[in-house]
C-alpha cells in the first residue's frame, strides 16, 4: 500500500488504527524532523539517538539529563539484552500474579464465556452478515463483555490484565470479528479514559462505556482550535478506517493544535487527546468498509465538522496526546497475543483432529513426517505466543511500567505465528481446509489484518530495534564519557575491558541463567546466554558502525529486531518450561521438548542474523535490493522485458 506523500500528516495514529502502510517512512522521518511533528516510534528513537528527549521507556530521563549515565536501571529483559546483559527479574520465574480470590473468580468466568461462544455466537453468520448478529450483541452487552477492565464500582467487571487475557483468549478462539469489536471498544476506544482520565471523566463515561455504547480512537488529520469563549475546542477533520466508527457514541480523538514551545519560543503542532461524544454534533461517518476479514467488525470513516468539545473533555494534558496514545497502545497490546494464542489453539485442534483420522496411502496422515513437522511447528508457535501473552500480562499486573518492547515483540510474534499456524492448518486439512464449511478459511481472512493494524509489524520491528539501540547507545555514550576521565571511572572501565577481552578470546563473560533456568534445561539456557552475548556485541558493532544513521538502515534494523524477537521467545519458553518442571506438571516433559526444540532453532536463526550483519556480501545484498526497488519504482512496475520479447 504505497501512500501518496501528500497531506497525511505524520502518521502518529497510523499506530492507533489500521495504518496506511509506511513505505515512505524514511522520507517521512526526514519530513518529520523538519516539520517538527512527532512520528510514532521511529522519530522517538531517532530523536533519542540525537540526544533529545526520549519518550519510550519510563527509565528514560529528560533531555537535559540524558547525557548522564543512566541512573535508573531498567528492569525490562528486552532493554537489557540489547546491552548484552541479563536482567532476569521480569522473566524468571514465570509470573504467577493472581491471588486465590482472583484465580477463583476467573475460574468461574471461563465456563459461561466459553459456553456462550460455543453455543450462541455464530461466527459464520456474523461473517456473512458482515455484522455481529443483534441478539448476540445484546447478550454480549448483558454479559458485561464490553467493560471487562472497567472497575466494578463503575459498572464493569474489574478484571486484571491477566484475567482479561484469559477471557480474550476464549473470544480469539471462536470469533476474531467479535474480538475486534470488543477489543477496539475497550482496548483502544476508551482505554485512554481508563488510564489517564480524571476522576470526573471516569465517572461520567466509564459506566456508560462498560455497557457498551461503542467507542474508538480517531486521529491526526484532525485539527483543534480553542473557541473565542475559551470554553470549547472546535474539532475539524477526520480519519479513515475506524473500527466501530459507524456504531460508536464516544470517541477518543487525537487532534493537532499549534502551541507555543517554551524552549524555542516557536509555534509547534502538538497533539491533544479529547473525549468526543457523537451527541456534541458535527460527527458523521461513512458507510461500512468491505473487508477481507473481520467482516463482523464495523469499519468506517469518521468526520468531524466544527465539533464543539468542552475543555473538561481534554484527556490527559493539553499537548500531551502523544503520551496518551503510546500509553493506550502499549497497554492494550498483550490482549492481541492472548487472543491469538486462543485462535491458534482452536485451529490446531482442528488440524490434529483431521490428521488423526484421515487415512492416505494406507496410514493415518499424522504418521507421516511431513505432517508431524507441521503439527510440531504449530504447537511450538502457539506455546511461545501463549507464554509471551501471560508473561507480559503478569508483568503488567505486578506493576511493571517497562514492558513496551516486550509488548511490541509479542504483537509481531503473535500475528505472524497465527498466520503461519492457520495456513499450515489449512494445508494439513487439504481441500477441506479450503472449504467455507470448516471455518478455517474465515479465520485466515480474519487474521490478515493483525499484521497490519495497531502498528504494522514492519513499523514495530523498527520500534523494537531503535528502542533497544537507544538504550544501548546511552550505555555506549556513558562509556565514552567515562573514557574521557579514565581514572575517575576506573572500576566501570576495568569491567568493560575485561568483558570485551573475554569475548574476543571466546571465553564466557560470566553471564549465566543458572539458578533461573531448571537444571534439565541448562543446555538451552546456555544457548540463550550465548545468543544474548553475541546479540549484545552485534548491537554495539552496529552502533559504532552507523552511529545516528542507524535510523536509516532498515535492512539492519529488521534483522536486529528479528533476533530480539527470537531471543525474547527463547527466554519466555525457558521460563515457562522451567516452571512446569519445578512444579512437576504431567506435561513437563512435553514442554521441555517444546522448549529445547524452539531454542535450538531460534539460536540458529539468531546466529545467522548476527553473521549476516557482519558479512560484506549481505551488505552488498542490501545495496542490490535498494537498486532493484528503485528500478521498479521508476518503471512503475516490472523492468525486465518479457522472456518472449513481447
Amino acid at each position, binding site marked *: 500500500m504505497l501512500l501518496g506523500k501528500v497531506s497525511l500528516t505524520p502518521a502518529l495514529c497510523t499506530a492507533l488504527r489500521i495504518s496506511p502502510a509506511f513505505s515512505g517512512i524514511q522520507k517521512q522521518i526526514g519530513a518529520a524532523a523538519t516539520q517538527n511533528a512527532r512520528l510514532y516510534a521511529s522519530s522517538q528513537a531517532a530523536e533519542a539517538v540525537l540526544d533529545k528527549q526520549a519518550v519510550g521507556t519510563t527509565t528514560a530521563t529528560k533531555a537535559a539529563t540524558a547525557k548522564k549515565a543512566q541512573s535508573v536501571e531498567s528492569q525490562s529483559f528486552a532493554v537489557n539484552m540489547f546491552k548484552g546483559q541479563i536482567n532476569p527479574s521480569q522473566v524468571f520465574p514465570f509470573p504467577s500474579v493472581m491471588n486465590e480470590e482472583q484465580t477463583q*473468580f476467573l*475460574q*468461574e*468466568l471461563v*465456563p*459461561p*464465556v466459553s*459456553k*456462550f461462544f460455543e453455543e*450462541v455466537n455464530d461466527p459464520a453468520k456474523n461473517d456473512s452478515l458482515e455484522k455481529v448478529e443483534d441478539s448476540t450483541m445484546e*447478550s454480549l452487552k*448483558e*454479559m*458485561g*463483555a464490553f467493560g*471487562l477492565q472497567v472497575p*466494578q464500582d463503575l459498572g464493569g*467487571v*474489574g478484571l486484571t490484565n491477566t484475567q482479561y487475557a484469559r477471557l480474550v483468549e476464549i473470544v480469539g478462539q471462536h470469533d476474531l470479528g467479535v474480538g475486534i469489536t470488543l477489543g477496539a471498544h475497550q482496548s483502544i476506544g476508551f482505554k485512554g479514559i481508563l488510564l489517564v482520565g480524571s476522576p470526573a471523566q471516569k465517572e461520567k463515561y466509564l459506566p456508560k462505556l462498560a455497557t457498551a455504547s461503542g467507542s474508538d480512537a480517531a486521529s491526526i488529520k484532525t485539527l483543534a482550535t480553542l473557541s473565542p469563549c475559551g470554553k470549547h475546542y472546535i474539532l475539524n477533520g477526520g480519519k479513515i478506517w475506524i473500527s466501530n466508527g459507524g456504531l460508536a457514541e464516544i470517541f477518543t480523538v487525537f487532534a493537532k493544535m499549534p502551541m507555543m514551545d517554551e524552549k524555542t519560543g516557536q509555534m509547534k503542532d502538538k497533539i491533544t487527546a479529547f473525549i468526543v461524544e457523537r451527541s456534541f454534533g458535527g460527527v458523521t461517518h461513512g458507510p461500512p468498509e468491505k473487508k477481507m476479514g473481520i467482516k463482523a467488525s464495523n469499519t468506517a470513516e469518521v468526520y468531524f465538522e466544527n465539533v464543539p468539545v468542552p475543555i473538561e473533555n481534554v484527556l490527559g494534558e493539553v499537548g500531551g496526546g502523544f503520551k496518551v496514545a503510546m500509553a493506550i497502545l502499549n497497554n492494550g497490546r498483550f490482549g492481541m497475543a492472548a487472543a491469538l494464542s486462543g485462535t491458534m489453539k482452536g485451529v490446531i485442534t482442528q488440524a490434529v483432529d483431521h490428521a488423526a483420522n484421515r487415512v492416505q496411502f494406507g496410514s493415518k496422515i499424522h504418521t507421516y513426517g511431513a505432517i508431524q513437522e507441521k503439527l510440531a511447528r504449530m504447537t511450538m508457535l502457539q506455546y511461545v505466543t501463549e507464554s509471551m501473552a501471560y508473561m507480559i500480562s503478569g508483568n503488567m499486573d505486578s506493576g511493571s511500567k517497562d514492558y513496551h518492547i516486550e509488548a511490541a515483540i509479542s504483537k509481531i510474534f503473535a500475528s505472524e505465528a497465527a498466520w503461519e499456524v492457520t495456513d499450515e492448518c489449512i494445508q494439513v486439512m487439504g481441500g477441506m481446509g479450503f472449504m467455507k464449511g470448516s471455518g478455517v478459511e474465515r479465520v485466515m481472512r480474519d487474521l490478515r489484518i493483525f499484521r497490519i493494524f495497531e502498528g504494522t509489524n514492519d513499523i514495530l520491528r523498527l520500534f523494537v530495534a531503535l528502542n533497544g539501540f537507544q538504550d544501548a547507545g546511552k550505555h555506549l555514550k556513558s562509556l565514552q564519557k567515562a573514557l574521557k576521565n579514565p581514572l575517575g571511572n576506573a572500576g566501570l572501565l576495568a569491567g568493560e575491558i575485561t568483558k570485551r577481552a573475554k569475548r574476543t578470546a571466546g571465553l564466557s563473560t560470566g553471564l549465566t541463567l543458572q539458578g533461573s533456568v531448571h537444571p534439565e534445561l541448562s543446555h538451552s539456557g546456555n544457548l540463550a546466554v550465548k545468543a544474548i552475548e553475541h546479540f549484545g556485541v552485534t548491537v554495539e558493532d552496529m552502533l559504532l558502525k552507523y552511529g545516528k544513521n542507524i535510523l536509516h538502515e532498515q535492512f539492519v534494523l529488521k534483522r536486529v529486531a528479528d533476533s530480539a524477537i527470537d531471543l525474547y521467545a527463547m527466554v519466555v519458553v525457558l521460563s515457562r518450561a522451567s516452571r512446569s518442571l519445578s512444579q512437576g506438571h*504431567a506435561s513437563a516433559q512435553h514442554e521441555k521438548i517444546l522448549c529445547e526444540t524452539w531454542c535450538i532453532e531460534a539460536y540458529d536463526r539468531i546466529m545467522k542474523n548476527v553473521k549476516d550483519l557482519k558479512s560484506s556480501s549481505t551488505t552488498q545484498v542490501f545495496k542490490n535490493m535498494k537498486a532493484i526497488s528503485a528500478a521498479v519504482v521508476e518503471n512503475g512496475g516490472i523492468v525486465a522485458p518479457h522472456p518472449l520479447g513481447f
Partner: protein
Amino acid sequence: MSRVLVGVKRVIDYAVKIRVKPDHSGVVTDGVKHSMNPFCEIAVEEAVKLKEKKFIKEVVAVSCGPTQVTETIRTALAMGCDRGIHVEVSGKDYEAMGPLQISKIFAALAKKEEASLVILGKQAIDDDCNQTGQMTAALLDWPQGTFASEVTIDGEKVKVVREIDGGLETIKISMPAVLTADLRLNTPRYATLPNIMKAKKKKIANMKPADLGVDEPPTRLAGVKVETVDDLVAKLKANGTI
C-alpha cells in the same frame, strides 16, 4: 409460599470423552472438566423463574460432595439463586454415596428449611439413576411431579405436565411437593459476568450429613458371583432374603 430447595449435582461435562481408569476401578475424574448436571440447570432455571414471577420468595441451591461442588453452587447463585448449602461429603464416602443417602439429606433439609417445593433434575448424566427425586418425595411423604415439562402454580396446588412413555400426562398436586425437571421444561439462562460478580457476595452455608441426622453411607459390600440359578436361590435363602 416462601422457599424452594433446588438440588444441583457436579458431574463430568457432557462434552468430555470419558476414559476408564487403567485399574478399571472407575472413570478418570482428575483434571477433567466438570459442570452442573444439565437437568439440574433446568431445575435451577425453573426455580428462578418462579421467583421472578413472584410465586416464591427464596431459592436455595444445595449440593452434596467435596469442596469442588461449591463451584457448582456458585453457578446456581449466578443464575439467580439466593443462597447455597454445601453438604460436605468427601473421599470414599462420596464415591459410595447414592440416591438413597442424597434423598435422606434432601428430605432433612426440606423439613429444616420449611421448603414448599423441592426441585431436582430428573436424573444425573453420570449415573442415570432417576431415583433421587422419587425417593425424596417418599421419605417426606410428599406428592411428586416427575419428568416435568411444564409447571404452573395455581393457588396451593401445582399443575404439572409430565412426559411419560405414552405422551403427556397432566396432574395437579398439592404443596409441599417434589418436582423433577425434564429436558423441555425450559432453556437455562447464561450466567452473565455481572451476575457472577454478584453471586460472590451470596452466602453458602456449610454442613455435614451428621448435622442433619443422616448416617454416613454404608460401605458398599462386595457382591458374589454364582455359577447357576440353583446356587443363587440357595444363597438368597441362606441370607434370609427369600
